[in-house]
């Protein structure tokens, strides 16, 4: 079946270029393609449909991504990065980063542009670089499945991401050698997959609680294949990790009470706790009680090894996380308010994200929306599927599907007194443009600085800075006399441009706002070329592996025939000669394999093949 799919994939290839859809999750990532109008999740080498978003560097300097990185995490905790998505596009001095500093087992350091870097084995990596390693892995998974190179991708981000975080994700794509044709929101992608090809005509809510973020979006889906987001909101720091943290706290507190030791001080112990907590949490979705058993978790001062043993009930977990669930519901309420809709107007609720498997969450959702949530979509795969659908819809010729998304945060400028003046409110459908008139704040002011910000606070300092520029050549006048019209425009690709003009002199200045990911374009280029070198290395690796394998198969086969060949023709000169030649070929091949030089091995493979043919002729002839 797989084969026939690939063949048809080959056939389709001529018409269009493939676009893959990647759900770059906090805990798990997933890649999908649209195959014959069916969104298909591509399994990784291990056969899993999702890949842990974990990156590690081994002692030998080798990079590990996914399941393998997860497996070695305990023994290599300081060099294993998980949940990097929580740091992407963040400023060094943000509270989120401060929080991460306390809780991560890897080392976070300050970057050159007020950004965040991670130190792994004496080398520092930017967050987009870390994410790019995961993207590269997903790209490779897709390429292996399609047996063709992939360059274009649609990547999803939490709906509540700001432009800096989106830009950083785009940069990660670029570093991974991907042309990111669009960044779309995770809940929107889920809705696309939910409504794809089904002629849905309804108002739906998407409730997405993943490992790191919570998003809720309200959409109108029309029979014409249009998906229009009406409102979206969320929290980029509310997810499964926080549930795990509650369990960890509980375990740590219990241990401290018993032994007077703080397990947090030990990074290895912390990593084990983290794994155990998540495991228990997941188990409790199915059973009512989970055992947590961590022998030899730490050595006491007396050098005596201590064990951690606890039993967590579902009820206890629900008690520990009650406020987190409440917060999800609060945010959902906000979304409905923003959409100006009543609960009864929501016709379906789609659950997305691994955390929605938790019974208490399902119950809370059902109570709030007063209807049983929809279970038709796979919570872990639906986002990647939606991304693949959007990718195909953009590049295909017959475009029957249209996605209309909104700005999750207000956009505006900072005005006198650090006040944030909104120009484009949140939940505005793009493309859009709006203007407002401002005046000068000082007498004889001849220039103004236009500071472009994004956020939902009236206080400019609480919002994200997106960019700034200066409008000069203003007429000298008393304050409040010069009128400056500022126009914001967001195009379909989400690119923001800002134009400011003096209404009288016509003097104008405009910029295209490039959100700052924490990396300069040059850095992104350099990292991309580093990464592609790394890819080349890795490709060479693959070539060596396959050449070696081929050589070894041939060596084994020739070895196996050697005795028989010797027996049948060893008496004759030509026979002795042949056997001798064969032996030499084997030696040379073994040496080549030792050298790890793929090309040298391949040369020997040819010789081996000749030898094998000859031997077969001899053996078969008798």
């Amino acid at each position, binding site marked *: 079946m797989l084969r026939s799919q690939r063949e048809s994939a080959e056939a389709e290839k001529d018409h269009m270029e493939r676009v893959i859809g990647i759900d770059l999750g906090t805990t798990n990532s997933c890649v999908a393609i649209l195959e014959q109008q069916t969104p298909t999740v591509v399994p990784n080498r291990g056969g899993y449909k999702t890949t842990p978003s974990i990156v590690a560097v081994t002692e030998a300097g080798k990079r590990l991504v996914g399941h393998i990185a997860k497996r070695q995490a305990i023994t290599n905790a300081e060099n294993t990065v998980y949940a990097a998505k929580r740091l992407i596009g963040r400023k060094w001095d943000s509270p989120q980063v401060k929080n991460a500093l306390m809780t991560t087992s890897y080392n976070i350091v300050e970057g050159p542009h007020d950004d965040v870097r991670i130190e792994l084995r004496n080398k520092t990596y930017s967050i987009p670089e870390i994410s790019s390693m995961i993207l590269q892995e997903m790209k490779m998974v897709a390429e292996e499945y399609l047996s063709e190179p992939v360059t274009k991708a649609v990547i999803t981000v939490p709906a509540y991401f700001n432009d800096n975080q989106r830009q950083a994700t785009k940069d990660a794509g670029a570093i991974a050698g991907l042309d990111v044709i669009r960044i779309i929101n995770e809940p929107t992608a889920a809705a696309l997959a939910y409504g794809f090809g089904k002629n849905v005509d309804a108002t739906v809510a998407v409730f997405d609680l993943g490992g790191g973020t919570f998003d809720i979006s309200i959409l109108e889906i*029309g029979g*014409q294949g249009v998906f229009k987001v009406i409102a979206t909101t969320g929290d980029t720091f509310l997810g499964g990790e926080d549930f795990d943290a509650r369990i960890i706290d509980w375990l740590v507190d219990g241990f401290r009470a018993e032994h007077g030791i703080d397990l947090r001080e030990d990074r290895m112990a912390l990593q084990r706790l983290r794994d155990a907590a998540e495991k228990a949490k997941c188990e409790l979705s199915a059973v009512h009680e989970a055992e947590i058993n961590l022998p030899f978790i730490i050595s006491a001062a007396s050098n005596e090894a201590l064990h951690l043993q606890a039993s967590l009930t579902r009820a206890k977990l629900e008690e520990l996380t009650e406020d987190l669930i409440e917060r999800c519901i609060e945010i959902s309420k906000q979304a409905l308010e923003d959409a100006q809709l009543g609960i009864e107007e929501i016709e379906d609720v789609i659950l997305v994200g691994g955390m929605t498997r938790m019974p208490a969450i399902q119950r809370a959702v059902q109570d709030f929306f007063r209807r049983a949530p929809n279970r038709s979509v796979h919570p872990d795969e639906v986002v990647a599927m939606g991304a693949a659908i959007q990718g195909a819809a953009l*590049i295909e010729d017959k475009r029957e599907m249209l*996605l*209309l998304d909104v700005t999750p945060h207000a956009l505006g400028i900072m005005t006198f007194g650090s006040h944030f003046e909104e120009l484009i409110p949140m939940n505005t459908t793009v493309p859009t*443009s709006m203007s407002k008139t401002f005046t000068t704040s000082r007498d004889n002011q001849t220039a103004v600085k236009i500071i472009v910000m994004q956020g939902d606070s009236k206080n400019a300092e609480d919002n994200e800075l997106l960019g700034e520029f200066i409008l000069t050549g203003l007429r000298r*006048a008393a304050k409040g006399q010069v009128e400056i019209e500022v126009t914001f425009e967001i*195009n379909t690709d989400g690119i923001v441009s800002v134009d400011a003009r003096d209404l009288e002199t016509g003097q104008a200045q405009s910029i295209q706002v490039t959100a700052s990911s924490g990396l300069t374009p040059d850095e992104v280029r350099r990292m991309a070329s580093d990464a592609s070198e790394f890819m080349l290395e890795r490709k060479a690796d693959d070539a060596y592996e396959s050449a070696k394998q081929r050589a070894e198969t041939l060596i084994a086969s020739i070895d196996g025939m050697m005795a028989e060949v010797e027996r049948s023709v060893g008496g004759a000169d030509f026979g002795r000669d042949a056997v001798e030649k064969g032996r030499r070929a084997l030696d040379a091949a073994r040496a080549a394999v030792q050298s790890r030089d793929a090309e040298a091995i391949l040369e020997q493979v040819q010789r081996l093949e000749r030898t094998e043919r000859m031997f077969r002729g001899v053996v078969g002839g008798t």
Partner: protein
Amino acid sequence: MDESPRRPTPRPGLDWRTLPIGPKEAFVLSRLDGLAGVSQIAITTGLGEGDVEEILDRLESLGAVSFRHEGYRSPPAIAPPPPSPAPPSPPRASPYPSPSISAPPPHSSASSPPANPASASRDSILDLKPRAPAYDVSLLDEPADLDRATKEKILELEALLPRATHYELLGVPEDAEKAAIKRAYFTLIQQFHTDRFYGKNLGIFRSKLERISSALTKAQDTLSRAKTRAEYDQYLASRRETHGVRDSLPPTGAPPRSGDADSSDNPSIPRAPAAPAFEPAELAGSVPTIPSPSHASEVNSERISADPITGRRLLARKLGFRSGEGRSENPSSLPPSDPETTRERVARELKDRFDARAESQASAAAYYVSMANSARESKDYPSYVNALRIAASLAPDDVAIRDALTQASIEADRELADKFVQQAQYEQRDGYYERAARSYERAARGKESAGLLADAARYYREAAICAAKEGASLKKVAELARRAVAANGKKVEYRLDLARAYEKLGMRSSAQGEVQRALELEPDNEVARALQKQLR
């Protein structure tokens, strides 16, 4: 609904001499062929589009012309093709490709009055006639990976944007259900969203598509929420209510017209020499739906001598049958089913009285005057003015009626001024600066005639600012600024505004004069000083 792009047709058998018009109007009337749109007429007459719109509005309210909505019905065949400078484009039924969504604009029935049954039967032939597009056809040659038909669709829809109401843009009736609005929006946005053309070179069409998309979304967002829809409906209603009196306002700076019923000199309506006119057509509310055929047949048209059917129908619908406007695609299903409002009752009484008196063949003009008085009592100012206008057209030599009309215009302006302010504010908030400029101007005039000069000045200034934002001509802006000063000469800022406008027009000495006067008012004003230095 702003009737554009629109194709005016002279009413057949019209006796021009009965109309209270001047040479300019007559000239425009003589150029109408039922095919040319406003921009073509502007070209053939050498008048500005704003003037043309204004004249057409006036002619329409006098019943001299009727309109066809471009893209919906085609114009009469009797006329020769327009002197189009560009190659004709193939016939199109609608800017919207699918007939299912291009529901006729609510006022379409008004453009094919039942009194003129011939027009209906001609339509089939007419559709084959090439029509002049409402946009610059040379844009079709702009490079883009789009076929010609798509380019045409985009340009047509874009041309419609500044004038169409949200309902018209989406092609839905004004009582459309939320679901129908959503459907219409989804169908249209599918066709005009740039994602549909992803990866293609769209050239100048990209920004046009984005403008269309945002306008469609704005319409949908406004209409899909009860609160914003109610606000918008109220705004539309207000626009329509004031619609009837727009002609009573002389255009800014238009030279006095002789023989013009409402142009009699009145000191409280200042006029500037030969400044360009503001285009009040933008302000116009929609053409109201005409009464159902049964109503129309009640009116015995043969009895009226000077102003036949159209004028009366116009009046009748303005008096009583406007509530059905756009609410139903089938005019015969119009009210009265709603509880009768005072206004409707008055209207009915008026009509009854009118019918009765017409029967007795008394002076038609006198009936209109009496109707005007009733309308005034019920505070229906648009009808008040309109009734007098018709009366004046019936008795062009009656000085008393003419004076009454002048008086009525002033009164109506005054009474409606606050409505105009509200409209202007809504328009300004929504970024429709051109419309806002006009509404402010009208508000200012009303305030002016009410003697509230400080208010008048303030609104003239707002009008000037909006006009500047919209990119109106400097002359227009200057004229409005001048009016602000005329209304309130004590405000330094107003004078400085005007000075700067003069300066930009190259009228240095006038600018210096204004600055001088500003400095007389406030000798230490720094801005004034700086400007003075600059002007030297």
